[in-house]
């Protein structure tokens, strides 16, 4: 386990009280808290190096550009990107996936084609493909999940028979915590002739990610779930694919020459970074990566898996609690319901004890329909969580049961 007694003081927000109690922040799958080093990096950037990047002929602008490009190098190293030119800064996973859909998708997906997604995908890895398919007259094929919350590999195989142009899936499910066999899925999809788009929003903060080993084509990540500021993120892609793709946003920075009636494009990754970029976000992301690398991604993964294991063990001892997702191959995400208490009521009661969890559909409505629930409660862990947090969670859940006089029968909803 990580030494949380040393980690927690690095996070100013964890030192404050919530409803008069220690803040028990268990909504890390939604967003992580930020360490002092990340906050300081942003303040330092604005205090000493701020200028617009890639254009100034003065020292300050060079410093800003260096800070921005150093962050790109950090991201490339962090996920073992094919090349640092294959790292495009975006506002996050959602924008990264929309970029692929709008650029690669619009160019390559034609009427009658198929795009494959999975029933455990986040809306951000479903809706951009729906928009693309509706525009092109193409078909979305959603791969089913198994009873225990994994991608159904036989259905995945059947979906590939349609020779899809794109296969999109999450590395780690935000609603179930399932760690998917990304390399295996990518290999199968490639054999069927598809390009693969991996939603890395929940894997990048928690696992050692190696995009070259996964051998996907596009990998999307969000900084804000991994200690970095909101609005930071990246699309990591094979450079040859990016080279061949048309731009996403037109504007300054992304051009080579602009004529009266046409333009030529800058080299990658700048071709996809029209307009003044969010340098602050990139700098913060670079600082976050340094913090995570110092702890070690393997240790982080082990820490969270142990917390999840303990949480599942202890919640399962409460009569009426149902935990969703697979028993193994899972990250630090624990979705659950408690009898007929609606997750929103559960979240409100937990909040009074300073315990922050997410309640709702977690932007995975297709998955919720398959689980037969309208919503779940979800506890998700990060580097600063410890056994005390699990104690607080379990005590608060039991309180909710006392308040509601919980009936042990789980909520059952007709499909």
């Amino acid at each position, binding site marked *: 386990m990580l030494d949380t007694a040393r980690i927690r003081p690095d996070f100013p927000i964890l030192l404050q009280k919530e409803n008069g109690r220690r803040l028990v922040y268990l909504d890390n799958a939604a967003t992580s808290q930020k360490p002092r080093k990340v906050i300081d990096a942003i303040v330092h950037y604005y205090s000493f190096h701020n200028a617009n990047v890639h254009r100034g002929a003065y020292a300050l602008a060079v410093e800003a550009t260096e800070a921005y490009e150093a962050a790109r190098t950090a991201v490339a190293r962090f996920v073992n990107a094919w090349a640092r030119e294959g790292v495009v800064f975006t506002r996050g996973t959602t924008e990264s996936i929309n970029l692929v859909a709008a650029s690669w998708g619009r160019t390559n997906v034609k009427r009658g084609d198929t795009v494959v997604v999975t029933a455990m995908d986040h809306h951000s890895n479903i809706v951009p493909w729906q928009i693309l398919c509706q525009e092109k007259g193409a078909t979305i094929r959603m791969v089913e999940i198994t009873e225990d919350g994994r991608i159904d590999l036989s259905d995945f195989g059947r979906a590939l028979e349609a020779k899809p142009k794109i296969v999109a899936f999450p590395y780690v499910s935000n609603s179930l915590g399932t760690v998917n066999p990304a390399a295996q899925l990518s290999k199968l999809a490639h054999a069927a002739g598809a390009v693969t788009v991996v939603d890395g929003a929940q894997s990048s903060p928690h696992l050692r990610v190696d995009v070259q080993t996964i051998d996907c084509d596009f990998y999307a990540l969000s900084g804000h779930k991994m200690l970095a500021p909101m609005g930071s993120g990246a699309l990591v892609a094979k450079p040859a694919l990016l080279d061949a793709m048309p731009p996403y946003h037109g504007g300054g920075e992304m051009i080579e020459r602009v004529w009266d009636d046409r333009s030529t494009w800058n080299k990658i990754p700048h071709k996809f970074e029209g307009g003044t970029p969010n340098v602050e976000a990139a700098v913060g992301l670079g600082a976050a990566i340094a913090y995570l690398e110092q702890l070690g991604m393997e240790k982080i993964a082990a820490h969270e898996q142990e917390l999840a294991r303990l949480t599942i063990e202890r919640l399962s001892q409460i009569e009426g609690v149902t935990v969703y997702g697979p028993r193994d191959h899972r990250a630090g995400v624990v979705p659950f319901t408690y009898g*007929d*208490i*609606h*997750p*929103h*009521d559960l979240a*409100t*009661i937990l909040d*009074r004890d300073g315990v922050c969890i997410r*309640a*709702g*559909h977690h932007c995975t*409505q297709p998955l*919720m*329909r398959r689980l037969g*629930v*309208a*919503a779940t409660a979800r506890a998700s862990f990060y580097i600063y969580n410890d056994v005390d947090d699990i104690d607080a969670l379990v005590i608060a859940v039991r*309180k909710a049961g006392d*308040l*509601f*006089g919980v009936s042990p029968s789980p*909520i059952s*909803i007709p499909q």
Partner: protein
Amino acid sequence: MSDLGELYQQVILDHNRNPRNFKRIESANRKAEGNNPLCGDRIQLYVLLEGDTITDIGFQMPQGSGCAISKASASLMTDAVKGKTAADAETMFQLFRDMLSGGTNAPGKLAVFSGVRAFPSRIKCANLAWHALHAALQNSAEPVTTESARDF
């Protein structure tokens, strides 16, 4: 637990467990659907309006049971407006909204929701059924959502 006790009063827990008028009304001549896209809760409201009087009213929460606050609110609302005129129901909605935004308590049993004021994240849950009723009485075909009405 005191403010939680204020929020989850026994009347609310009772109406959550045993919602009144939890039914579809086949002969309803006014219907509305309410959505809370944040939590995925949905309500379907059925109203039989005869002349200006709400002679019958029922609701269902099709995809999930709804949280205790939204379900109890729908249940108590249906009890409160049954037999009343549409104008009276709209007045009650106004009083209910006023209460949740910090005003005086709404009349009768509706006052049990005064505790919701201390939980801003739950005000939408309490208001959902009332917005659906408003839409039904206006004969609005569009489903109401908690994100389209500014005063939710």
